[in-house]
């Protein structure tokens, strides 16, 4: 028997938020990308409801441009924890002519995810979508509430958010609306990595240094995966030892050169880093307000 529960305020807060979701909503879902933040979410949900199973399914919006390692990891996790997984494919939406694939050098399916997400919410009637966004990631995210209400069109009304005082979370909504819930709002990137380290959690191998065929553009390193990532003829493919700090689509996630082959080295590297994690996301570089605009339209 252990003496006294050791407090970790961030973990306690996240567990509290998960339990509020269970208490306040009928059809919650965890938005699962296979990245480190959503893996952390699953871990926290496990802790919140143990010894019962996680009482929510997972939803993955699959762009078709994922790293294969992420998908393999996802399927393994779902099986281990005996979870229900919904996958919605952006490709289906493109084939049906609902959305138009981007073209050109910076083409990415990142923006197209929003439509698939909103369709999935409507189809299943999800009333709470739990996401792994953190306030330290980006300046518009820094403004968001833990329970963030979206209207019938999935839109975020950033200038008119509900007050959120103390730890009282108000998840009351009308039919058709939904709430985006962010249990790890107050975690930093380093908090997440330290937690993965402490908990000895498994994560997809692409987060660790590995050899990869890449090319450089605008000072960033891209996966040379010609099927998904556009490459000019003069952008030469070389082999480098790299890792990924964040895992989105291949077409919008840049790698960093790194020799961090294990979690201890990754934590060290993050602690010493002078670039933020979103610095490696081309989707944020499109404009000053890229994230805010996407959120208004219903993005994660």
């Amino acid at each position, binding site marked *: *028997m*252990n*003496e*006294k*529960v050791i*407090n*970790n*305020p*961030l973990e*306690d*807060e996240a*567990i*509290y938020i998960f*339990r509020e979701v*269970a*208490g306040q909503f009928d059809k919650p879902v965890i938005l699962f990308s296979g990245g480190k933040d959503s893996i952390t979410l699953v871990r926290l949900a*496990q*802790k*919140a*409801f*143990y*010894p*019962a*199973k996680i009482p929510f399914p997972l939803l993955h919006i699959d762009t078709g441009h994922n790293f294969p390692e992420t998908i393999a990891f996802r399927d393994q996790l779902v099986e281990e924890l005996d979870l229900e997984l919904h996958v919605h494919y952006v490709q289906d939406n493109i084939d049906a002519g609902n959305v138009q694939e981007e073209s050109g050098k910076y083409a990415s399916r990142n923006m197209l995810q929003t439509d698939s997400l909103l369709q999935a919410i409507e189809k299943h009637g999800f009333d709470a979508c739990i996401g792994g966004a953190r*306030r*330290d990631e*980006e*300046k*518009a*995210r*820094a*403004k968001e509430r833990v329970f963030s209400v979206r209207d019938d069109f999935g839109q975020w009304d*950033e*200038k008119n*958010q*509900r*007050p*959120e*005082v*103390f*730890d*009282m979370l*108000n998840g*009351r*909504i009308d039919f058709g609306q939904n709430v985006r819930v962010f249990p790890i*709002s*107050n975690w*930093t990137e*380093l*908090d997440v990595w*330290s937690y993965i380290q402490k908990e000895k959690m498994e994560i997809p191998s692409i987060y660790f240094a590995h050899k990869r065929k890449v090319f450089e553009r605008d000072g960033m390193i891209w996966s040379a995966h010609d099927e998904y990532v556009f490459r000019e003829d003069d952008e030469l493919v070389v082999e480098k030892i790299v890792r990924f700090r964040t895992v989105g689509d291949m077409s919008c996630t840049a790698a960093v050169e790194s020799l961090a082959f294990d979690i201890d080295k990754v934590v060290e590297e993050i*602690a010493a*880093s*002078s*670039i*933020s994690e*979103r*610095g490696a996301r081309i989707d944020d570089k499109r404009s*000053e307000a890229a994230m*805010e605009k996407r959120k208004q339209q219903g993005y994660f």
Partner: protein
Amino acid sequence: MVGNKNKVLKLSTAGSVDDGKSTLIGRILYDTHSLTDDKLEAIERSSKQKGYDYLDFSLATDGLVAEREQGITIDVAHIYFSTPNRSYIIADTPGHVEYTRNMVTGTSTSQVSIILIDARKGVIEQTKRHFFINNLLRTKEIVVAVNKMDLIDFNQEKYNAIVEDFQSLISGSDYQDQNITFIPVSALHGDNVVDKSENLAWFKGETMMEHLENIRLEDIQEEAKARFQVQTVIRPKTEEFHDFRGYAGKLKGGELKVGDDVTVLPSGRKSQIKSISFFDQQYLSASKGSSITITLMDDVNVSRGDLIVKSEELPKESKSIMAKICWMDNKPLEAASTYFLQHGVKLVKSKVKSINHKISTDTTGATEKVSQLNMNDLGLVEIQLAQPIHFDAYDENKGNGAFILVDTKSNTTAGVGFIL
């Protein structure tokens, strides 16, 4: 953050619009080397675009398009940084009176409030209002930053006059158990924020950052009785845990131990704590803040919203409460209107019995008879409840003494209350 994960100091900013709150936070981030290269580049780019010949540090926190266009803060930004000593979570709040509800949001979770004053303007109405709100929230640690000292030639007499002015506010306040520190700074130029300044050589106190680093967490922690509100009942219904029925919640105040005699409210049924667990581990005790699961010796009926307390530490019980309310909705609060009252995680139907008076926010405590409370008003209100709640006075247990009022039609959080 490695190694000091459990040492977090939560700060918030306060003060009138344009007093320099966001600039101060940006300056702290810059001078502690907490801005990553890409974020700093973005600030440099935007500052240049706006035609400034200095860096506009408010851009580090004003993240919304509308905020950057108007040069004001509209909603709270949460900012994170750490020193070798500990981690900080800063809520940078808006100064504009229209966004007081967002200021309350940011301040409600913080332990330290930095109230900024524009040295040219001195103590103004909004300074008073924000000091008053901090007192209402019982923020223990207040730092008064007299900012823009560069614009008054770092003049000591003028600074002293402002300090004196503020001190007269303190004497009128109903919350005396508070530490208040005055620091002259220039957020824009960095004087006395992180580094000591030649310009303020006459000031013998600590810089802003030195002061924050030296605040002891033990000194600002609330001592309160153990209150365990059940968020959800865990029933695995598996072979292994066939009869398991655990009560999951986050302990507010105090400590609970296995074997403690407890009472479940509202039923009043008594039992003992059989087990305390966190994830797959069992423990003998848990203290304030822990998100745990407990089981009881007896098969009593417990559901979401029920409160488990030590039998010798019962809270108050009532269907009628008196509370100070800070109103946050466009639709005014009126007598006889009905709201959901959310006390922690428990929702109860409620009706406003009477608005006793509106309280002036200038810390004179003056009262005024009114028939309604408008957005950003503060007042003393009596509320009737459909079922009793089990509470403490806010002064005795913040977590069990506060509530929100939720509009039954729009669902918005319309007001926050502090039980007397």
